[in-house]
């Protein structure tokens, strides 16, 4: 495969993974979907199943509306719609994480409205700063492992786990490498292309993804290149619809870092080596950068973004707010205040899965980017 073909294939999968997943199913894999939030894909993979992070749909909401309050977040609405309406037969089971009120109660609705062979709740600790959180994550991971084993009828051990760890670690390593290349040479691939790869990682078996990423890294320019673009850090949970990234490309913006859940947070943290594989998964979980719905230590949620802004030497921050995400709603006023105090340019975009091309969003982004260029000229 050539680099261009890889990019095209991964772009297609990132937009619609279901033909690919169907082909996996034909090879005998059961497809296990999980809404976004820290479900350890490695564990599901080691059970011989095909883990998939469910990333919603941009198509119209038809059925989900009748099950949810009007102010349910756009992510949960589009996830439920995807599974209820557009892909009702594409999943064999679900591992459902709970991080906020929405995910906790959506889990109940999901169980009642969607039939599947397998359903497991994954009850993530919603705090990370005390020893109990670690003990709980470990216990919950062990419980998930047992449930997966009961489902497949095949107990699995250290060997299978370590193989999955190293496959996922390798895919993440390659993605980080590509991100690094783009940082040094923004023209090497577009913003959209970079995030297409990360989305593909959410959907694919690393065994299939790794050779493609290798082709990419071999064929991308390695040398540093001068960059005239303004440099931004992206913040939030997910950039949706992904056409927003095309707009950033059009406006001459280089992404130099992000704290997105479908972004760096997904690819930055490898499973370390450890005597006990479940301990290794636990250690990785607590390495991760902050995540809005989970109570972190002190003001780490903000400090992490400030640190990222400083170390990347960015010109500004673009924050993607998911419509009706209550968690972000509580974070934002203080975050805006902090940024204003430090004179760090930040724009907050209200995003919704179903509004693909909002002229207003584009205009606001344009104005923001222009102001960043302007500021650069004025030193």
């Amino acid at each position, binding site marked *: 495969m050539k680099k261009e073909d890889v990019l095209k294939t991964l772009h297609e999968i990132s937009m619609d993974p279901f033909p690919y997943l169907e082909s996996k199913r034909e090879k005998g894999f059961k497809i296990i979907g999980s809404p976004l939030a820290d479900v350890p894909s490695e564990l599901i993979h080691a059970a011989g199943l095909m883990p998939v992070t469910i990333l919603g749909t941009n198509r119209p909401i038809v059925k989900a509306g009748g099950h949810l309050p009007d102010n349910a977040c756009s992510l949960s609405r589009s996830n439920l719609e995807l599974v209820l309406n557009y892909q009702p037969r594409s999943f064999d089971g679900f591992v459902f994480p709970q991080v906020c009120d929405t995910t906790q109660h959506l889990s109940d609705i999901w169980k009642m409205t969607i039939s599947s062979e397998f359903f497991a709740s994954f*009850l993530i600790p919603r705090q990370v700063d005390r020893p109990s959180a670690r003990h709980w994550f470990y216990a919950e991971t062990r419980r998930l492992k047992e449930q997966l084993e009961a489902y497949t009828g095949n107990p699995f051990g250290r060997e299978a786990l370590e193989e999955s760890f190293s496959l996922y670690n390798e895919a993440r390593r390659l993605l980080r490498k590509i991100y690094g290349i783009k940082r040094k040479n923004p023209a090497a691939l577009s913003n959209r292309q970079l995030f297409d790869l990360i989305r593909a990682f959410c959907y694919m078996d690393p065994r299939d993804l790794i050779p493609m990423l290798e082709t990419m890294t071999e064929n991308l320019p390695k040398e540093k290149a001068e960059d005239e673009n303004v440099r931004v850090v992206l913040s939030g949970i997910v950039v949706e619809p992904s056409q927003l990234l095309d707009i950033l490309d059009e406006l001459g913006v280089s992404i130099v870092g992000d704290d997105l859940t479908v972004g760096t947070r997904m690819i930055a943290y490898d499973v370390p080596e450890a005597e006990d594989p479940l301990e290794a998964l636990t250690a990785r979980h607590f390495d991760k950068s902050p995540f809005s*719905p989970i109570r972190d230590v002190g003001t780490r949620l903000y400090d992490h973004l400030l640190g990222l802004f400083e170390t990347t030497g960015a010109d500004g921050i673009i924050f993607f707010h998911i419509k009706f995400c209550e968690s972000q709603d509580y974070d934002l006023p203080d975050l805006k205040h902090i940024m204003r105090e430090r004179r760090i340019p930040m724009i907050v975009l209200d995003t919704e899965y179903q509004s693909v091309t909002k002229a207003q969003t584009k205009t606001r982004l344009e104005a923001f980017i222009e102001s960043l260029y302007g500021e650069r000229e004025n030193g």
Partner: protein
Amino acid sequence: MGETKQMTAKELSKRLTKTYYEGAKHAHEQGKFIAYTTAVSPAELFYAHDVIPIYPENHSVMMITHRMTAELSESIERKGYTSHLCAYARSDLGFRELHKSPIGGIPDPDFLLACNAQCFTLTKWFEVLSRRYDAPLFVFDTPQFIRDKKAREEIIKYVMEQIYEMIEALERLTGKKFDFDRLREVIEYSRQASILYKKYLDLASYKPSPISIFDALINMAITVYLRGTPDAVEFYRLLIDETMENKVKKGIGVIPNEKYRLYWENLPIWFKFRDHFNLLASYGAVILTSLYVHAWSYDFDPSDPVRTLAENYASVFSNVELEERAEMALDLFKRYSLNGNLMFLNRSCKAVSFAVHELRDIITKKTGVPALVFESDMGDPRFYSESQIRTRIEAYLETLDQLSYDRERGLRD
């Protein structure tokens, strides 16, 4: 004691509330610590350690019933908060902007505890306060109490470990050793208050019912903030005696001609509940109960203090799976002979409202009682449409009338 003997329950409640808030107001002057906590939380730990628990939610209810929420909310909407947040949180954050309150405010926190058995909103709301006052926030994390037996054992273990962590945090805060004997004593008071409180709620099973949900809501406050004290025990004893004496023994119902005994899903629309009571009464209907008021009917065992706190607080109705929550509601339908169901989809409270459509399906299927689902806000009149809600409630009661007419004539099962 001699003096309180003459008091009515209402007077006692007033006095206890006044003393409690006065005590809180002067806590700092007396070298005492203030902890903010959530209505469902192991507050016994605070009472056992002489830390005064303050409930911003309760304070918010007062601001809501004094119809201050729209103004308070607007003050924080100008600061970037959205009007989609819980009206308790908005009222509270607004209070901190405008310093307006029907009781002259509540003191600032030294420590915050958010128990997410109730909701996740509280964690985020308390995070804002924790940054504002630079006070430590302890998230008391209670994973959904799913039915799986093994999972439950693990959850209890996790929650118990957090109680020990919380005790350590309290010791750090106050520099004082925690006293487990005192904890047992406090839990014993909580146990007694909870049993009496539940007994009071269960008076609604009499026909006609001597109390409506509005009585339950008014009298709930004491168990929310004073359980763990002998005062709460005394109050519920008096309240039950009084209701037995004045109503039950005389066969007097809370409304004349009681015909429809309704279940109410969710929190009340606080600023409207008198109007709702009157509207319903004119149709011979009265709301008797909800899972919400039962959230404080705990069942404590003081001999195993840490476990009993974990078990009670993890298993509150808002933290169990929907099927189990439906069973809890169905139990109330049965025990109180309920024959109507008003299901309020409260845009303020996703925690309790989120799966209301599925909950309605289960309850309707099992009881055959039709339900009315309607959307509004528990605290913000800007999201309350008087005419719409009135019309829908009236139409619903007419359906019930038609149904009972048909049933009396054998036209339906």
